[in-house]
């Protein structure tokens, strides 16, 4: 290398170090930008529904949004929790979202005062959160991407964790459960599990989705035995009704990433469509034995479970609807009601 080239190279290195340093320093002093201060707006449809939702910034739906209670058409901020997926039952909740660093994800286990009590580091992007009706178990599904050092592949996979809500620790991982299909052991390298729903009468008993190849099987399992069995194909993100008799789920349209919500009878495994005709990528929530709530990622809607009627906007700029058995936050704080409820 000529000494002239050496000088040019040294100059370039200095320039890059200074330029990069300045850029990063300026970026470091700017706002963090992992959180939105968007407020959801409740409509006056279904005044009796008492919900927990998380706020969605319509421009940036993946930013963490505040957790709000929607009660009698009013919204109240629940503590300072902020996340992308929320669920709650019987005194304990899970709030999954991006960590303050913007690169890691965490699940926060919170109590009935909406205060975070445990933090669980997540392996990837929040996908689904559930808590069993008795508050014993929580379930979290995450998308795992980018765990690649030598392999530059960006193929995704999922992990589904069972959380012991009392200790805030991961108790099990569905990937380690045994699966049977038609009575035979069933195993494949591309197994992915997502979307647990707990039996309301027996939190040890659950349903979930097993993805392998082009199949999306509904599986039924028990946490105590760490076993699952395949029930049928074409069922994703199952959600059991409060009486445990029906499962709302998303049904994939061909091989696309578009889904319709359908409802399945647990006893007969027969299913039917609901009135919502748009694609919905959500694990539906039952408001009662006859009514579903779900989000398109921007707003929360409701539709009758029996296929009748039509969908209605429930909460604007919100997702992750959770039915509350009783109000969490006192009614004395102010809220806002939508003037133009649709």
């Amino acid at each position: 290398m000529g000494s002239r080239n050496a000088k040019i190279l040294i100059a370039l290195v200095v320039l890059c170090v200074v330029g990069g340093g300045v850029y990063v320093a300026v970026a470091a002093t700017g706002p963090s930008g992992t959180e939105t201060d968007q407020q959801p707006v409740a409509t006056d449809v279904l005044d009796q529904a008492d919900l927990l939702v998380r706020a969605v910034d319509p421009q940036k739906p993946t930013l963490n949004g505040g957790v709000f209670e929607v009660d009698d058409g009013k919204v109240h901020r629940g503590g300072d929790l902020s996340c992308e997926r929320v669920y709650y039952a019987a005194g304990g909740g899970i709030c999954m979202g991006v960590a303050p660093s913007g690169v890691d994800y965490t699940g926060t286990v919170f109590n009935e005062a909406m205060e975070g009590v445990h933090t669980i580091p997540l392996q990837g992007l929040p996908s689904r959160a559930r808590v069993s009706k008795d508050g014993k178990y929580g379930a979290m599904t995450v998308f795992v991407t980018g765990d690649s050092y030598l392999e530059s592949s960006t193929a995704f996979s999922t992990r589904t964790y069972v959380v012991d809500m009392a200790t805030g620790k991961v108790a099990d991982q569905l990937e380690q459960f045994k699966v049977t299909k038609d009575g035979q052991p069933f195993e494949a390298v591309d197994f992915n599990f997502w979307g647990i729903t707990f039996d309301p009468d027996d939190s040890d008993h659950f349903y979930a989705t097993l993805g392998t190849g082009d199949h999306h099987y509904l599986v039924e399992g028990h946490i105590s035995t760490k076993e699952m069995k395949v029930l049928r194909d074409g069922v994703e993100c199952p959600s059991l009704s409060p009486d445990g008799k029906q499962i709302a789920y998303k049904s994939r349209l061909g091989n696309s990433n578009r889904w319709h919500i359908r409802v399945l009878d647990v006893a007969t495994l027969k299913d039917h469509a609901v009135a919502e005709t748009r694609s919905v990528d959500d694990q539906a929530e039952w408001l009662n034995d006859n009514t579903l709530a779900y989000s398109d990622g921007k707003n929360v809607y409701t539709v009758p479970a029996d296929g009748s009627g039509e969908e209605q906007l429930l909460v604007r700029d919100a997702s992750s609807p959770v039915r509350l058995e009783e109000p969490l936050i006192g009614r004395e704080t102010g809220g806002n009601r939508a003037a133009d409820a649709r």
Partner: protein
Amino acid sequence: MYQVEASKALLKPRLWFRRPDALRVSRNVVMLGMTSMLTDISSEMVATILPIYLVFSLGASPLALGAIDGTYRGAAAVVQVAAGFMSDRFRRHKQVAEAGYGFSALGKVALVAAGNSIGGIGAIVAFDRIGKGIRTAPRDALISLSSTRDNLATSFGVHRALDSVGAFLGPLVAFGILLVAPARFDAVFFVSTLFAFLGLAVLVLTVQGKPWRAPRAETTPPSMGRAAGLLKDSKFVLLLLAALILSLTSVSDAMIYVGLQRKIDFDPAVFPLLYVVTAVAFMALAIPIGRLADRVGRVPVLLGGFAMLFIDYAALMSDHLGYAGLIACLVALGAFFACSEGVLTAVAGAALPDDLQASGIGILITVVSIGNLLSSLAFGALWVTIGLQQAVIVFAAALALALLIAAPLLVRSQRSALHG
């Protein structure tokens, strides 16, 4: 021995390390290693955060990610044979490599400028893949042509070690930036671009385009017919066959990691550490193994490297595997990487005529990547149909057979390389 070295030294370019028994590789090799290291820091920075960025900032579905990456892998394979031949034909290894590195650097600029659309990201991943396809064969040819026939494996070892340092540092730099500037992905892209251009600058400013073994200008450049003739040259064809057979029977590291995770109930948080342990082992072993290969012979080291996979296969077949076993598996995997790819390229470098280095290496890389792809598909299919344990048994038996077949092929290839 010393006299031989001394007389050769007259022909050699300046050596980077001068102690007689120390690492003896050309400065060109070290500089090409620096180029790869800086470029790898740059691309690994982006690769690490791209999935998070796409989903977090753009709201893309993670399902879209796999599609973006998979689409462009094939394109790179086609480009590398063509780029290899072009650099031999026009005797412009350095310029073609520069074009490849330049492509990737421009892709990073585009990321800073227009990184907020899925289509834009797709185009950038394409740029990066094509750039990698273009640069690999001419760069490896330059490494080969900058080495003596005695230190080829050491040279590739030094290059691969530096390269893996880059792959290791990239994610650290990216996370470091996001630690001080949370969620500022633009800062990561900006710094990544700087690294890409520094890599290119090291190549342009410090690497000699006509190393001492490069064909002289007065000789006739190779025609396409002569390059195609490589496929009739028995010593090269034997090597290709051996490489294909071995790559067909080796399970990809990604599959091994998933298998190990199924075997041991380790904390999922440990998963990324598997890559780290393997990468560190690879980094630490690449140079000593390269030197060993130059001393005791490349073929035994190459075969020994593939035999390392038996350790991992045995672990995947066993019922109980503790953390000590897991570490042993990962170190064996790192040793496999250190003994296989770089040493194989060194074997090729020794077998190929000087004026067809890039063409031959381009063909070899393509054959190996086809073998790896087919092996992954076959292993995945076997895993689904007959289960992990049985799939590993099939692959272990196949690898044993492959080693038995490849050994004489490689020995014969070497022998004709010496006398031919």
